[in-house]
């Protein structure tokens, strides 16, 4: 598989505090890649940098071998995000919300309408078209959020805690849908989640703590090297070790 995203020695500071320290890894085309870590580990900052929302202090990000340009329309057209908290307007209908966002990519109302309807059908949400977004259930909102993220048929889709707040049934439905869409559009998916079992199907997992890479490998390989049965145990072991090392270092 080709490398879609290559990150080398990435570092970022906010208010003189190092949030990311010399991070290096790569994401291959078509893979499901998970970024795990406790709150404050640097996950959001890392994603902001890959999205081009902030500039790194050091290091390099390559997208399809080209250096990431924060204002590049080409790069923006490749990437999309399903945010943890919805970014659509509750007062507008699903149709209005999607038409407005679709217009960003096609600059034509007729084409925007066609695109919005097509992507809503992809998430099996055509029946929601004329409903006000604010009255939808959590699962329905997530479907529309995913339809919004698909408007540019991204090569790289970020899912930021995609199932937070959903019941077990809706979570299972959501994952079925995500896998279907990944196959259909041959997308690369980057997932951040607190539910470890959702990361078990990933091709590769990156574990971060205090801005450093603590582990980076396939889930099975991680379980094997840490002698754990579940990814959750691997995560806890790594975090524990990280803390011990930090304490030793402090002493």
């Amino acid at each position, binding site marked *: 598989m080709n490398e879609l995203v290559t990150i080398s020695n990435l570092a970022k500071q906010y208010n003189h505090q190092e949030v990311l320290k010399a991070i290096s890894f790569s994401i291959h085309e078509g893979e499901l890649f998970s970024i795990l870590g406790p709150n404050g580990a640097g996950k959001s900052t890392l994603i902001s940098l890959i999205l081009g*929302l902030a500039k790194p202090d050091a290091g390099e990000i390559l997208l399809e071998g080209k250096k990431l340009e924060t204002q590049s329309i080409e790069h923006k057209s490749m990437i999309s995000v399903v945010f943890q908290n919805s*970014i659509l307007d509750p007062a507008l209908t699903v149709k209005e919300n999607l038409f407005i966002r679709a217009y960003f990519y096609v600059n034509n109302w007729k084409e925007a309408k066609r695109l919005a309807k097509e992507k809503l059908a992809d998430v099996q949400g055509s029946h929601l078209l004329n409903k006000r977004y604010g009255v939808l259930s959590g699962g329905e909102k997530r479907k529309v959020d995913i339809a919004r993220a698909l408007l540019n048929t991204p090569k790289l889709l970020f899912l930021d805690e995609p199932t937070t707040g959903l019941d077990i049934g809706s979570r299972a439905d959501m994952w079925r849908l995500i896998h279907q869409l990944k196959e259909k559009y041959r997308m690369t998916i980057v997932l951040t989640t607190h539910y470890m079992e959702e990361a078990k199907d990933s091709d590769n997992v990156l574990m971060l703590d205090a801005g450093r890479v603590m582990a980076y490998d396939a889930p099975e390989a991680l379980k094997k090297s840490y002698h754990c049965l579940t990814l959750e145990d691997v995560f806890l072991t790594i975090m524990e070790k990280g803390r011990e090392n930090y304490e030793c270092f402090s002493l």
Partner: protein
Amino acid sequence: MNALVYRGLSLFFKNRQAVIGSFIGAAIMIILYVFLLGESLVGSLSVLAQPKLVVDAWMLAGVIGIASASSTLGSVSLMIRDKESNVYTDFMISPISKSKIMLGYFFSTFLISLLITLVVIVIAEIYLVVLSKGEFLTLPQFGLLFVVSLLTVFCSSAFMFFIASFFRRIDTFSTVTAVIGPLIGFLTGCYVPIGSLPEGVQKVVEYFPLTSGIVLIRRILTENVFSSADKSAATMVKEELGIVMSGQTGIALPIAILVISSCLFLVVASWNVKRVEVKR
């Protein structure tokens, strides 16, 4: 950019509270004059033939000016609300430039304010003709009023956009707008006649860009009501009420002030918004 303007307009007009809120500043001023200050001001202008008509026209010009400023507050806050949530981030990762995002917010604010100001102009004209027994504006006067209102709304939108560019939290901005709204009424000499303010404050009023627009609106609305008045008395009253400022009777200078200050506000606001790095 069109999509962002459409979004701004849709969100504003679907929010009844925001629409009603845009008229509140203007409504407060009408109530203030009809029930409280109007009578005493009419009494102080007894040298004129039609003092009530002069006060009504002057007050309604202020109402139009206040409406052009207060109607921008609701829509300009959308930008801050979007920044607080991830909506702004969503726009930033979409294939549109930061400048177009800014212009989208600005033009939706401008169009909303323009529509509301035009409604207030129509209501003011009906009030003047039906209740105050004044004359209809002529077509050239109406044309000039439209152009001046357009520029005043443009300046108000740019000014509010400039103020909003400093805020990242809607709570803080709401607190500030609660002060800014009434302050604009005083700074443009709408709530109290400019002549009755202390000299230092008069200077501030004179150099406040929005005052130029409101002075022109006053001049157009009161043009017909001074036609039968004694010239020296009319000149004195015009200075007192801020219909003429510093003896300037031309329209070129106030229009230049409106255009230049609008551009300055917009440039500083865009720079201010652009320099802020988005943090997720």
